């Protein structure tokens, strides 16, 4: 004890009676430096905007979206336009005819990434390819979200026998090797779908999107919703035990309303993250299918089919593989990092 800074008789000369007057509430308040309180969304947004990698990924995604969905409308070439005499050009190379036009003082838009063996501009093909790949990713994920969250919340909310049966079905679909069934569906679905679309004018809209894309959407949403359903069910199971649900029920809210208004909004973080991470996986699978020749049908191209077409000529025209391969990698990378960032932002416990 003797080592302690003891002051049995404190130096009283620097103290005076005023010091021992009670302090006012205001004076006390000044000591309380409170950190700002924030809402769930603000907090998540703040954490997300601090995550540099995720912010960069977000900007990249926006840029890719603009490039894929807006720029092709103003691009001087079409994805299926075959320019005679401009076959097999290297990036920034002009054909003789084009060179002659330039010499004549005409403006000729350069083939930034060259052309393919049919004289199609690779630049626009990559842009529209990215559009197709993004469409596949976005639409497939949206369908998965829709089916998975409805199925999962119904199973989780009602529980008991309903849950048991519904989850058994999920278990079985889950243990089906999805990629094999997807291949099988892609092999078999196109012909009957085409027949169906051709049979009536009701399907004109769908026909314009293309049988290839539609059958990809169908296949993905048929198989990939199960993990989403499992996740949503798990969340709902925990949430429905909580007091605010009992309160809502006591106030006479219907089951549908409780699911829509009280349960789903509370697992929105998980839903957003899972959906975002579903996008790159769908793009990946589409690329794989395209490589097997089961993706979208020519002349339409996805990044995957562009890369797959280029593999045979890799020795002489490596850029034809390089450009779509880099594009696909950037898109998948950006969505993965963006999703990781969202997960960290919504669930700080996960971030270690």
């Amino acid at each position: 004890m003797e080592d302690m800074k003891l002051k049995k008789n404190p130096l009283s000369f620097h103290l005076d009676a005023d010091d021992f007057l009670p302090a006012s509430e205001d004076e006390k308040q000044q000591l309380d430096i409170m950190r700002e309180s924030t809402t769930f969304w603000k907090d998540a947004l703040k954490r997300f905007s601090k995550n540099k990698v995720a912010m960069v990924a977000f900007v990249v995604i926006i840029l890719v979206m603009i490039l894929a969905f807006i720029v092709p409308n103003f691009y001087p070439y079409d994805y299926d336009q075959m320019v005679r005499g401009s076959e097999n050009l290297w990036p920034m190379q002009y054909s003789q005819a084009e060179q002659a036009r330039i010499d004549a003082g005409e403006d000729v838009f350069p083939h930034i990434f060259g052309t393919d063996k049919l004289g199609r501009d690779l630049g626009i093909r990559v842009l529209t390819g990215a559009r197709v790949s993004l469409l596949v990713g976005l639409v497939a994920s949206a369908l998965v979200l829709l089916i998975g969250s409805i199925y999962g919340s119904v199973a989780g909310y009602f529980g008991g026998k309903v849950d048991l049966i519904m989850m058994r079905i999920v278990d079985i679909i889950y243990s089906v090797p999805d990629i094999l069934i997807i291949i099988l569906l892609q092999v078999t679905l196109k012909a009957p779908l085409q027949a169906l679309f051709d049979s009536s004018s009701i399907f004109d809209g769908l026909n314009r999107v293309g049988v290839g894309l539609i059958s990809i959407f169908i296949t993905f949403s048929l198989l990939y919703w199960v993990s989403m359903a499992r996740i949503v069910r798990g969340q709902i199971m925990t949430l429905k035990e909580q007091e605010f649900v009992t309160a809502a029920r006591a106030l006479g809210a219907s089951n549908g309303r409780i699911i829509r208004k009280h349960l789903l909004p509370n697992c929105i973080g998980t839903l957003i993250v899972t959906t975002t991470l579903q996008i790159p996986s769908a793009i990946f699978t589409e690329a794989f299918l395209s490589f097997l020749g089961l993706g979208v049908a020519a002349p339409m191209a996805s990044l995957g089919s562009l890369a797959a077409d280029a593999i045979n000529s890799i020795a002489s025209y490596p850029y034809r593989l390089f450009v779509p391969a880099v594009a696909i990698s950037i898109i998948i990378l950006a969505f993965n990092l963006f999703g990781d960032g969202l997960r960290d932002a919504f669930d700080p416990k996960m971030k270690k």
Partner: protein
Amino acid sequence: MTKYVCKRIGYALLTIFLISVITFTLMNLIPGGPFMSEKAVTPATQAALEAKYGLDVSKPQQYVNYMSGLLQGDLGLSLKQKGRTANDIIFSTFPTSAKLGGISILLAIVAGTALGSLAARLRGKWGDQLIMVVSTLGIAVPSFVVASTLMRIFGVELKWLPTMGLSTPMHYILPVFTLAFYPMAYITRLMRSSMLDALNQDYIRTARAKGVSKFSMLFKHALRNAIIPVITYAGPLLAYTVSGSFVVEKIFNIPGLGREFINCITGRDYPMVMSTTIFLATLLVLMNVVVDILYKVVDPRIKLK
């Protein structure tokens, strides 16, 4: 335990049955039947062909016939490779694929867990960052891009490695690496985060307070816990290896089941597509049962019911 195993196998059989039904139904959806591509077939030839392939009976009867064949281990006939049975084709090509896939899985697991643990150990340092950058790229680049890039660099430019077939051990390097790249990157990321998670747990603090060495803390106390999520990835890993082998075998021209399958798809050899799908699906489903039972060995908390 026995009860659990029986139950798991029961479910697996149900799944396989379901797959066979789906496969059969889908194959029959194709308009015009499997012979529509054959030109100028006389009605007589058509009938003869249908009889040969068992298509002259009703659909349910066809299914029953097909299934009873399956149960006796008969996967049917190939449409395009005249005179060869599906069994013949599958069992002559599968060993090659299995060997390639097995080596790749081994590489992915060993290298993935090692790199992931290393990254966790070096957390925040440049070694960790390098591993993370490479593994993040690894899950973003499709395997056919990896394959053709590797082929171009090591096969065409540097001429260090052979690129076609599997005749010598050297031939294995590029395909194995291509096939293992994605799962390796995935396992690395998984392992890193679960290792960091494990290292943050209270029992690690207990171990530290006991005076356990850094090495034993990492490899005895943390690793065994951290590896559990990696085992749950074994199912997807197997599935990935199967689908990845399609790409790799085609690009590196390896005479395995994967390449055969792709050829069947492009050649519209529907009976073969069906047989191969059922064979591979059965294989995957059964392997998953084995993996599920493996969990119990590693994690004593999982009670098998």
